[in-house]
């Protein structure tokens, strides 16, 4: 969106966090082996912060699709 385009770096980071927030906390749950416990989810957030700190990792994981959101 407009406000994000002015600061692409910040915008990309926010978009990534928003994406992971949805992936972990929303979406339909079907029965199956849930591979993540609550503690694991916290770990994902921690390692996501590390991920955000690594520009190289970000480039690799970051197709233009989400950045354009």
């Amino acid at each position, binding site marked *: *969106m*407009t*406000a*994000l385009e002015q600061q692409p770096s910040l915008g990309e980071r*926010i*978009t*990534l966090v*928003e*994406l*992971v927030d*949805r*992936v*972990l*906390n*929303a*979406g*339909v*749950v*079907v*029965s*199956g*082996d*849930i*591979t*993540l416990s609550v503690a*694991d989810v916290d*770990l*994902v957030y921690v*390692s*996501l912060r*590390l*991920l955000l700190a690594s520009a190289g*990792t970000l480039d690799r*994981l970051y*197709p233009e*699709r*989400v950045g354009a*959101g």
Partner: protein
Amino acid sequence: MIHLYAFTLGQRELPEIDGIGDAALEARTFGPVTAIVSEGDAATEPSEDAVRHGLVVEALLDCADSVLPVRFGQEFEDGDALAAAVAEKGDALQTALAELSGCVEIGVRVLREDDPAPAAATDGAAYMRALADRETALTGLHRALLGYARASVAAGPMRLRQDTGYLVRRDDVPDFARAVDAYIATHPDLTILCTGPWAPYSFAAAT
């Protein structure tokens, strides 16, 4: 293990992106509903897998009429286990997909500020008035945006912070975005973060 990303209706081609662990995406049909999966062990970091899961779901938005995102972390031993889980849902998946057809989710967060009330609030009454003003502004934003949305889901306390997902028809997204921009322009005191369009995650949880 089979990792499940989303259910879709009207699935056309598969997106070009690979799944978790760079495994190829596969479409498995269950009657009118398609399940998007990949097979293999999740070898990379959970955070990378979670991001990849999200990127796959977002890419599906361009390849199907309707996308019902699945929460990250759901895996199945084999095709039979997946089929059993899908069968357990009955018609609920198809019904939800039909309702979400042609729609995306827009997230609007009004960020909490360190000081919830203006510095001018010198006594209790002024503080309460400032809180009430804030609440009126947030309610106004919500009401304005609902005019362009089919539904909304709120998370978090409404008083100081608003975190809302709006279900918006694709055609209405530009109008919705303009309404947000107009509100931001007239309310410089509020920090408003608008993101999307996303797959409709917040409207899938109850399925």
